[in-house]
């Protein structure tokens, strides 16, 4: 009896406490909103947004609804995160491997790179790139081309855009190639398990992924044109580039800062992963007669990845959450557009901040769930 009370009483008190806090907040919110004449509801989402965005991936103008503004802003957030993740992975892997180099200079340069970028607050790094470094770039009329056709200017990075004809044919060819590769891999594995024979899967995959899309150009009527940005004079002293794609400086600063900052953490994950594999593994693999390539592919990497991937995903998640710092330099991401402009205009603080937080929360939880599934899958199955 006594034991039962001991178990139930703390739980009851905790639940009461939580209910009390929530109830207190809800009642206050009710009173406050009544006094200010605001009513709770999500009806505003279908109203006209009537604000503009500097940079969008999808078509958007002021006449679209708040809901559409939300979608467009969310896509901007995802674009920054996606680019940041790609660059931070590339940089992080290189730096992480460099930290394990035998070369004294390389090892130390990589270590200093990590120490340098890791210990400066991300917000300051973003500000540095945006307000100091990118402002030192030339004006459009003075810009020298990079790689002949791209222009890095104070107003952004101008790159050629691609104009496709029959893009869907190309994409379906690409998908077909990927599906074929998956089938070949499965088949090759079966063959290897049955007969011990190894098929040249890599070469076959490479051939497929180049030949099939190439065929679509030759026979499927797919064409690809590049629209190269051209300098255009707007007024006496005002120039812009027309045509092509313009990446705004906000995006560049954000991606630069995010990927440099996060790459240091990815580098540490990679280093820890590779260091976590004992030397005996490599020697054992060599003594059964595997080639160096096979050792890396079949013995080292599967084990190192098991250590590397979970913390790295965590870093990707951090990067995605940190991309919300975009609001500080006015890149139209979810926080700036929705929790900033839209909130200002509608005054629906609770709904809008709630939606914004829920969006990030669901991204995080989705990735966490995926991670748990992956961890379960790659777990060492002990007998």
């Amino acid at each position: 009896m006594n034991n039962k009370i001991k178990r139930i009483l703390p739980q009851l008190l905790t639940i009461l406490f939580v209910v009390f806090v929530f109830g207190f907040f809800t009642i206050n919110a009710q009173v406050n909103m009544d006094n200010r004449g605001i009513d709770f509801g999500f009806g505003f989402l279908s109203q006209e947004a009537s604000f503009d965005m500097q940079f969008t991936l999808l078509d958007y103008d002021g006449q679209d609804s708040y809901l559409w503004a939300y979608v467009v802003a969310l896509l901007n957030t995802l674009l920054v995160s996606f680019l940041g993740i790609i660059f931070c992975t590339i940089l992080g892997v290189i730096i992480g491997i460099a930290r394990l180099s035998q070369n004294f200079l390389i090892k130390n340069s990589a270590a200093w790179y990590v120490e340098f970028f890791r210990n400066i607050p991300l917000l300051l790094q973003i500000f540095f790139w945006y307000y100091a470094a990118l402002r030192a770039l030339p004006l459009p009329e003075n810009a020298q081309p990079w790689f002949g056709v791209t222009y890095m200017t104070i107003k952004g990075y101008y790159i050629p855009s691609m104009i496709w004809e029959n893009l869907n044919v190309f994409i379906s060819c690409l998908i077909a190639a990927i599906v074929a590769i998956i089938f070949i891999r499965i088949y090759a594995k079966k063959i290897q398990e049955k007969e011990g024979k190894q098929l040249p899967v890599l070469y076959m995959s490479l051939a497929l992924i180049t030949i099939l899309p190439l065929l679509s150009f030759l026979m499927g009527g797919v064409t690809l044109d590049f629209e190269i940005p051209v300098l255009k004079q707007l007024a006496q002293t005002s120039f812009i580039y027309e045509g092509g794609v313009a990446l705004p400086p906000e995006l560049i600063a954000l991606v630069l800062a995010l990927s440099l900052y996060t790459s240091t953490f990815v580098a540490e994950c990679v280093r820890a992963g590779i260091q976590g594999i004992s030397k005996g593994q490599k020697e054992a693999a060599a003594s059964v007669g595997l080639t160096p390539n096979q050792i890396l592919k079949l013995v080292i990497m599967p084990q190192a990845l098991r250590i590397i991937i979970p913390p790295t995903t965590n870093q990707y998640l951090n990067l995605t959450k940190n991309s919300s710092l975009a609001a500080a330099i006015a890149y139209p991401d979810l926080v700036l557009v929705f929790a900033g402009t839209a909130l200002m205009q509608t005054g629906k603080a609770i709904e809008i901040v709630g939606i914004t937080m829920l969006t990030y929360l669901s991204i995080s939880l989705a990735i966490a769930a995926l991670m748990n599934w992956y961890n379960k899958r790659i777990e060492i199955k002990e007998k």
Partner: protein
Amino acid sequence: MNLSLNRIKSQNQMTNIYIGSALLILSILDVFLNSFFRINISGSLPGNLSIFFPLILGFLGLSYLRTEYSGYKFLDSLNKNINTNNFNAFLTLFITFAILKAFPPALSWMILDANISGDTKEACTGTGACWTYIKVWLKRFMYGMYPNELHWRINSAFLLVIGLGFVGYFFKENLKKYLALYYVVIYPIIAFLIIYYLISGGSFGLVWVETGAWGGLSLTFIVSFFCLIFCFPLGMILALGRRSSLPAIRYISVGYIEFWRGVPLITVLFMSSVMFPMFLPQDFFMDKLVRVIIAITLFEAAYCAEVIRGGLQALPRGQYDAAKSLGMGYWKMHIFVILPQALKLVIPGIANTFLALVKDTPLIFVVGLAEIAGMLALAKTNPKWLGFAMEGYIFAAIIFWIICYAMSKYSYNLEEKYKTER
């Protein structure tokens, strides 16, 4: 590649070493003279060749120098460390030349061509950095808009708080058992009172300074300090809650932790500044700074909880069983057996959380609190001082870098220390 280079090598090792060092020294000299004195020895070479000239020379030199064993200590360590193969030799040269090339411009911008004299923008005439700007604005960067003549209040408050933080070291043996009580309960309260009465003022004959005027680096310290001392106990409770055998408590803790870990800090700050006032009673006013501190504390507590949970999980089951078999209850077991050991394990992790907290505090700029990033933005847009954003951000970066680097080194040392003790 290797083969063909070996073919041109002489059979005599000494000749190889002489040729190699001559080539290597020549290539380094070329880059050095070029970057420090703008003398271009290889300038007469056609086109792009002059850029690659030192690289090629150095590469040849290093491959001449590469031998199994030469008997010279310096050469052997060179070969072993930076010249093991062609690829390494190339990277070595590349990094050396990049440093040699980048050093003089950076040096002249930072020091040689920089200005620090004078009090106005006009004093900055050189092509280098304008440290005058930092000098003039230094008080603002440090103390925000806090009145100049009252800065002693911030300084003395900080000194007092730091001094009290060390009091624990001087506790007598019989007082040691109150150490945790002191740091978890008494110290935060005293620190809060000191900061409230000294920095805010309003009583004891001190002028009231509203929190809107607080700013600069001192605000960063105040915010991180309070969040730091409040988030730790909260995180401990949450970690225990997550490990609890009572389902309701466990699920509430899990929900809390996962919620705060899943949202970015910036939305939490937005929540504290625009949404939270709606949740408070009508005539109840809470200062923005207090709201922000509460928000960051709630946010960081979730991260703290996860770190502490790691420590709790790392303890062997035997510790729990042993404590229970002595007849200890839940609280007795945790306070006297589990937590002292678990917290020792997680000190490095906690230090890392605090490091992240310090790096996160500049974010409060987004909700309009003028800590150092805010003051920089203000100074940058001042019409008298346009165009010195670079100096300002480099200054702030250096300060934060020193703080964070020291913290990370300290946490690394702690980690090493506790590693050996186990």
